[in-house]
């Protein structure tokens, strides 16, 4: 089977009722329609009972993306869904990284990146929290060096319009 590699990264935001099974429904839809989704994040909104879901996916075709939107909007629990304009919105994620670094290396990292130190063991092993664009986190991980990373977790993207 030929799998087409899509390069255009896009974000969808949907507002939905905060009910059990809604996330399940969306993820089932993604599987059923074979959408190529990268991240899903869900959070509460200021309105009680309404959640905000952010999906990012790689999809070059506008028609296909519109289909994703329409299929999500079709769910009776979804109040609205739209695509975010990449230039008119902020896309951020949080990375938690546990790594080993000597004094000099750590100093270098702190000069380049702004992160919070959550834990420090034996002066050599750190757990830090860094937030920013996906690229910032990618760069940070690269600068730490793959062999130095003990563990890490990323939140997936969440977004806000300008």
């Amino acid at each position, binding site marked *: 089977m030929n799998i087409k590699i899509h390069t255009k990264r896009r974000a969808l935001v949907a507002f*939905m*009722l905060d009910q059990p*099974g809604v996330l*399940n*429904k969306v993820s*089932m*839809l993604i599987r*059923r329609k074979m959408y190529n989704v990268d991240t899903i994040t869900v959070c509460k909104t200021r309105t009680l009972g309404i959640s905000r879901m952010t999906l990012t996916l790689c999809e070059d075709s506008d*028609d296909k993306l*519109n*289909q994703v939107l*329409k*299929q999500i*909007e*079709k*769910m*009776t*629990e*979804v*109040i609205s869904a739209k695509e975010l304009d990449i230039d008119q919105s902020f896309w951020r994620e949080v990375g938690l990284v546990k790594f080993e670094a000597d004094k000099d290396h750590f100093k270098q990292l702190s000069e380049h990146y702004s992160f919070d130190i959550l834990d420090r063991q034996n002066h050599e092993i750190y757990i830090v929290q860094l937030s920013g664009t996906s690229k910032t986190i990618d760069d940070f991980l690269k600068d730490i060096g793959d062999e130095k990373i003990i563990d890490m977790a990323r939140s997936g993207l969440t977004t806000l319009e300008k």
Partner: protein
Amino acid sequence: MKGTELVIKALMDKGVKYIFGYTGGAIMPIFDEMEKKQCFSFMMARHEQGAAFMAQGISRASLSTDNPQVGVCMATSGPGAMNLVTGVADAGMDSVPLIAITGQVPTHVIATDAFQESDVVGVMMPLTKQAYMLQDVNIIEETIHDAFFLASSGRGGPVVIDIPKDVQIDETQSDYTFKAHEYVPDIPGFFYSPFPERDAIQKAVALINRSERPIIICGHGVICSNAGKLLRQFIEKTNIPICFTLHGLSALPVDHPLSLGMVGMHGTVAANRTLPQADLIISLGMRFDDRVTGNLEKFGVRAKIIHVEIDPSEIDKNVKTTVAIHADTKEALVRLIKDPELISKPRRLWFEQVDAFRRERLDELEAELKRGTGKQGQLLMKTIVRKLSDITLGKDIIVSDVGQHQMTLARFYNFQTVNSWFTSGGAGTMGCALPMAVGVKLVRPHERVWAICGDGGFQMNIQELGTIMEYETDLKILLFNNGYLGMVRQWQTLFYDGRFAGTPLKNPDFGFIAKAYGIPYSKVATLEEIEPALTNAADHKGACLVEFLCDPSEVILPMVPSGGSLEDMIISLSDKRISPA
């Protein structure tokens, strides 16, 4: 009030008359309450799948009556609910409103793999418009009202309500009230806008007026919105030829001078030749299924497309539209017809071309219909259907199973009555006809109902003969027996070098089966017997079964090969691309 009482009350408030189902441990309390109240006609199917199709029959056939109803079926937890799945999925594919109520194991044992427990909501969720599991007795009524609203508003579909046994027998709070006649469902994520936008209508009218070679494709949406009469006005006013999807058939008389018959994989030569030549395709309430379009890349390449559709997710799904009218087909047609700018054009050249397509292979087809038998002297399905059509004047209700006989009926029955053709289209579920016809007959009691099956599909829900016997349903059952799964055999003939893998059937003596159920039976093996047998069946009061011995080598042509475009249609067995055995 008790949960079970609320279920019954809500169903009564929603005007439910018939319930189809099969009892069992987890649904017993509701059945018990039904027995006490005696407020519905209950029909016990012999298998839950049968119950789901009977309920579908209610929804499908009552659309065009003064009292449209939503079919309701019930089953117990676990295997009962799982046996409903095929019927529910089928309703989803064909946009048929349906309510399925299932019992569930008590709340405190859910997720323990309790006896007859299955994850009904999990299984049904992707197949339905909504799947509820009720965990609170106080929301039973409101949920059932919501379910009916969802199932029957906008594009129809199935809704499942799973009720744990303890919730069924719980008592409501002391201050519980629910005013059914005042209740308005509030479903914030469900948008339903039947009315088209002015702008889209104007654009569509401009395209129609400009078009020299337009064609209309009539889909199930026309039937569902009961817009057959309006459609007729529209085509007559604009003078545009029309073809039908499988479910669009019977929206208007199929022998109307502007009609080209069914389009698609087994469509008529005329429709399949005309469509690719059109400069404008007006599709009404249909979803560009692959069986209609063939290869999408070659579909309608010369045409602009107006797509009238109630479900916004269908617009631009398979075919890119020029003008999308997101509305109920009926409302869109009303506005199109009333538009003062809409004109009629003679389109002489276009109709000359269309008429030439109509004549293609017509003589050969008529000769074949007249001959009526295959090389071995066995009957041709098309001849039987033509005779049935003549005897009933095309006015009766036809409920068809799935396969060759279904396509033969779609091609050769001369549908005259609006909404008189019922079958499983999208899902193509064999075995649908017998139970579906039971539901159809209940809501259209004064019309004659023919259930037509092949020998394969008949045996898939043959147990429902028990229901027909018990409730004395007046169905004319026609069994086209060719000893094969005919449609698959046809594909094997055309594309698999005639290797008949898994298609021959050793059949029982259907006469004995009919006798066992007390159903009069006759067998037809020759041409001369067809007419008297059909006339007898038509005149007989009560169920009867007529078996026809059909020619297994009959193929239903034309046929668009799977993945091919309409222009690749095979119209004759002497086609070079095929290798018949």
